[in-house]
């Protein structure tokens, strides 16, 4: 592969890269970068975050209600299982 131009140019469109018909030289970092989206590269992902969203009172209430729901239901599951294991005479 020629190194004076981006390796795998046009690779995202599926065109065979310059100077080759069979494949891509993935030892060349430019070939790798030409196939991945900016946010797909591990090093790039490690450097960026979407950051916390603003949790409105409505969203907080929704999340808390879901948490209470799970806790109550888990207690009921335990009761139900105990009943199944030790059925009333």
């Amino acid at each position, binding site marked *: 592969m020629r190194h004076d131009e*981006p390796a*795998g140019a046009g*690779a*995202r*469109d*599926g*065109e*065979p890269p310059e100077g080759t018909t069979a*494949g*891509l030289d*993935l030892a060349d*970092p*430019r*070939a*790798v*970068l*030409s*196939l*991945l*989206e*900016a*946010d*797909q*590269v*591990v*090093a*790039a*992902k*490690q*450097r*960026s*975050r*979407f*950051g*916390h*969203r*603003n*949790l409105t009172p409505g*969203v907080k209430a*929704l*999340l808390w209600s*879901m*948490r209470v*729901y*799970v806790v*109550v*239901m*888990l207690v*009921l*599951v335990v*009761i*139900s*299982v105990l*009943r*199944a*294991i030790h059925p009333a005479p």
Partner: protein
Amino acid sequence: MNRPEKQPDSSPYAAARPTTDVAAESPLAANLAGLLTHEDVDRARDRWRVSRARWRERGSKTIGGLSVLWLLIGPGVLVFLGENDAPSMLSYAATGARFGIGFFLPFVVLTFLMGLVVQEMTVRLGAVTHRGHAEMIFDRFGKFWGFFSLGDLILGNFLTLVTEFIGIRAGLGFFGIRPIIAVGIGLAVVISTIATGRYWTWERITLALAIFNGLFVPAALLSHPDWKAAGHALLTWTPLPRGRGEDILLLILADIGATVTPWMIFFQQSAVVDKGMQPRDIRAGRFDTLLGVVLAAGFGIAAILACVPLYLHGINSSQFEAAQFAEALEPWIGHAGAALFALGIFEAGIVAAIAISTSSAYAFGEVLETGHSLNRPLRDAWPFYSALLGSAAAAAGLVLIPGVPLEMIVLTVNVVAVLAMPPALVFLLLLVNDAEVMGEQANGSWENAAGVTVVALLIVAGIGFGLGTVFPHWIHR
């Protein structure tokens, strides 16, 4: 589109945003070129195959062409065939044995449609953000809510993993294989799938194993199902189930839990990311998910039909465990049919053990911000692989300890999955409606209506279970 919220000044991170920019054209390209990992190179290789296939099949009327679909299917099929796991297939078996052909056939189809609505959202979320579900919850909602969500996942996954090894033990037990050997075989298969350090190989091996979920189809055919009754039931939802309300309610919950569970959300999103899918692959990802739904629904219904002879002959299956269904079916579907059923339970346990342990490991790696990809060599991502193997080994070991209440775990696992699902779905819905994260791939009104309906149905089912537990006399009438 709204710009992302600015990070606090103290944050060492840049603000991420939804983008389809090629990395080579990014301002950071020069820096990134020196920081590429084995994972990046493997992912680029997978993308190159997809690019070439797209180029070859340009103009094709199918979604990018058959070879593109072949390359892009995986997470959707795996998640649904993985969820056709040992406890799920036993729930279907119990459904057929206790209630025959009727209400539950279309009900199972409905649960799979619910699953399709949910899992399609994970495809979009993964393809757009290139981040796993646990990572996104921690990013957007913070550690407080993140750890709650992770706790639900880890508890549910571990209990489910235990039931998979119960299924593996029981399935091979039908052939006279000792529990310790059966569980060892299961663990060896999990280890062998990750030994290559390559997502693509792992996915193809697991897909090849998952297709054996279809063993329930010949088992069903050997039971000579009444196709007319099955067709009538699918169209009319009748006859309605009769019997103890408690049993019916438990099976309704178990059948829902056999199709929509939190691990599926975490698994498919992370697998979409690990596979390297991009927004342009979303249509193929939807097809992959739909294919998984069709296959899994078909195999689930086959398990119900295979056990209908037990209902027709009045066999009491209420206390049956895994292998006992196969043994009880032998007089009606023959030894070959019973063996296929037992092998199906074994396969269901194996594939689910692989998928669920991987789901736990992805979440673990994402939260700890350590390497979390099946494209990483073992030495580079040992915490990720340790979590994967450690969870599988702990579950396998628990199954072998005498006196552990395995029956209780089996009874509980699908119910716990249903009850933990509404909070998981609320996080998912909030994320896919988040324009800062999803950009133009955010949910539309139809997707939201479908998603909210699924949450409402799950909550109604959960409340029904709760009322039945607190006021058992109500449903005993």
